[in-house]
């Protein structure tokens, strides 16, 4: 994008001044080079979000922002229900509560190297991945509803984990306010065989090692040291979330006129928070958040089983679990006053600063862990939320590298088999059912995750704690 479109507020903060129907400014956090490389559509989408009723302070985009649908991916916007604020199905996205969970293992690189191949095979065999794979947990109607109300807490009660896991998950593993009756039969049917599955696309399960500690104090609070082995799981609410997104997008698009809401893009379809469809969506969307949390909990159980089959005495406690695509009610200080806002994060991670009451006590002073996924050939990062970020972006940071190349271009440029071989030569084992999927997800098709994380750190959105590099990747 042209830099002249923006008013530069600081080295890493770029403002789109309000014009036309924009109610608030747009703000993009990024380095000059990331801004230059961003799609022009990000500018349009950030500006479009700024036109929505009840938006508070600004329409934000994180350093990994790219062209999404309606909202940019990497978009953050908060709405005040008492000022006509809206909730948008497009603003949350199809993969509701898609997120990353990181497990610690207490192992070091030397412990893993001799069993790497066997572990990769065990994980690939245990965790269903890719299109057409089905989970081993099939839910009847009553259990489906219990899962949608209980989230990871439901999963732990059914034996898929330990009670200790729950305090290390956003919302303590259970999103309140979920209404299973607002979830259609279609959505429930679509989920029937998909509990405990990774899905496909950019979803993955990785065994990683801590390659570098960048903040010793916070890393110690999180229990991370150089050479440690961790496991990261990236997936979401599967078919149930996708179906809810699809149905409410249509419902809001066809109902927008009824509420007198004019949107510049149909995908921005939204409804007042205090409206029947708004309440109904929130009930269904929260149920989908629980579905994602339960799904990652079941996958955690499968990962633990796979590890136990190779390394019997290993424990895999959670570091943390974050969600990317959500709308959550949060208290934020605006102009010195506390306000309850509906914060949409679309491809953005909640990144609450030190001391926030929702952060588990044992690392509350360090700030919330922010887990950033990379690609199968590069790096992932652990960051920590900052006090500054609370004011900058309603406590939000980036969520990943973001694509720099379309799937189509990637397919023309790479062959999956070669990508797997090249990564193998670098000591990264890939397990996949689809070489075409690997080609589309080739590391070169993504932006430089280091640059994205550096920009988030420099902008003050989050503080870089550790760099993780992949050893095994089970591709969804």
């Amino acid at each position, binding site marked *: 994008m042209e830099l002249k479109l923006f008013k530069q507020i600081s080295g890493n903060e770029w403002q789109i001044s309000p014009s036309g129907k924009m109610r608030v400014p747009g703000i993009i956090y990024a380095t000059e080079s990331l801004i230059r490389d961003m*799609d022009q*559509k990000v500018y349009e989408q950030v500006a479009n979000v700024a036109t929505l009723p009840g938006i508070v302070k600004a329409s934000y985009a994180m350093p990994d922002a*790219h*062209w*999404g*649908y*309606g909202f940019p*991916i990497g978009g953050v916007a908060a709405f005040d229900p008492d000022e006509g604020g809206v909730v948008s199905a*497009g603003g949350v*996205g*199809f*993969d509701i509560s898609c997120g990353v969970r990181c497990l610690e293992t207490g192992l070091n690189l030397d412990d893993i190297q001799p069993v790497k191949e066997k572990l990769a095979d065990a994980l690939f065999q245990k965790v269903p991945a*890719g*299109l*057409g*794979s*089905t989970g081993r947990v099939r839910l009847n109607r009553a259990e489906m509803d219990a899962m949608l109300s209980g989230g990871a807490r439901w999963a732990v009660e059914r034996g898929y984990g330990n009670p200790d896991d729950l305090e290390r998950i956003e919302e303590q593993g259970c999103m309140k306010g979920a209404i299973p009756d607002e979830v259609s039969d*279609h959505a429930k*049917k*679509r989920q*029937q*065989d998909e509990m405990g599955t990774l*899905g*496909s*696309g950019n979803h993955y399960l990785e065994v990683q090692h801590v390659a570098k500690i960048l903040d010793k104090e916070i890393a110690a609070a999180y229990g991370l040291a150089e050479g440690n082995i961790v496991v990261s799981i990236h997936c979401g609410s599967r*078919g149930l979330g*996708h*179906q809810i*997104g*699809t149905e409410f*997008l*249509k419902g809001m*698009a*066809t109902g927008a006129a009824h509420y007198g809401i004019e949107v510049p*893009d*149909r*995908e921005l*379809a939204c409804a007042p928070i205090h409206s029947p469809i708004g309440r109904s969506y929130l009930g269904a969307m929260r149920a989908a958040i629980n579905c994602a949390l339960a799904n990652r909990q079941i996958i955690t159980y499968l990962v633990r089983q796979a590890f136990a089959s190779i390394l019997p005495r290993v424990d895999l406690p959670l570091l943390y679990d974050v969600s990317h695509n959500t709308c959550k009610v949060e208290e934020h200080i605006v102009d010195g006053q506390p306000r309850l806002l509906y914060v949409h994060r679309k491809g953005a991670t909640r990144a609450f600063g030190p001391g926030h009451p929702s952060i588990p006590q044992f690392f509350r002073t360090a700030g919330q862990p922010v887990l950033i996924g990379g690609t199968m050939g590069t790096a992932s990062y652990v960051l920590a939320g900052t006090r500054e970020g609370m004011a900058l972006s309603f406590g939000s940071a980036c969520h990943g590298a*973001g*694509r720099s190349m*379309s*799937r*189509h*271009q990637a397919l023309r440029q790479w062959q999956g088999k070669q990508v797997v071989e090249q990564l193998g030569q670098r000591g990264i084992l890939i397990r996949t*059912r*689809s*070489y*075409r*999927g690997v080609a*589309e997800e080739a590391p070169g098709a993504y932006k430089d995750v280091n640059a994205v994380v550096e920009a988030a750190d420099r902008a003050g959105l989050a503080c870089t704690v550790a760099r993780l590099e992949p050893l095994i990747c089970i591709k969804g």
Partner: protein
Amino acid sequence: MTQKRWEHFAHGSDIGVRGVGGSKEEAFEQAAFALTAVITDPESVVPSELVELTCEAPDEELLLADWLNTLVYEMATRNMLFGRFEVQIHGETLRAKAWGEKIDALKHQPAVEVKGATYTELKVYRGSNSSWVAQCVVDV
């Protein structure tokens, strides 16, 4: 006579599907081929099992999104892929026949699962040479 065809177009993180045909129905059928092609080579899908579908929407663009979303739903719940389509549109209602088979991971090498058809770049219009174009971005 418009040569019917399908194609993909680039989108930042996802992928666009486009169908072109001599009629709106044909453009919708071709868009469905483009949808299958996001996942696998449509030629590799044997059209052995028939599924009949109906959807409704207040305008032709939302009807396209609904049509593709209905296929996404059927693929997900039946664990199928589709390789042949027959579409009829009357006003706000679309009736279709879709033929396909169960997913075979080894044979079809499915690249990615489609989560849903979005309203981004959602367009249904008369192109040049009186052809019809039906397109949108799908989330994968």
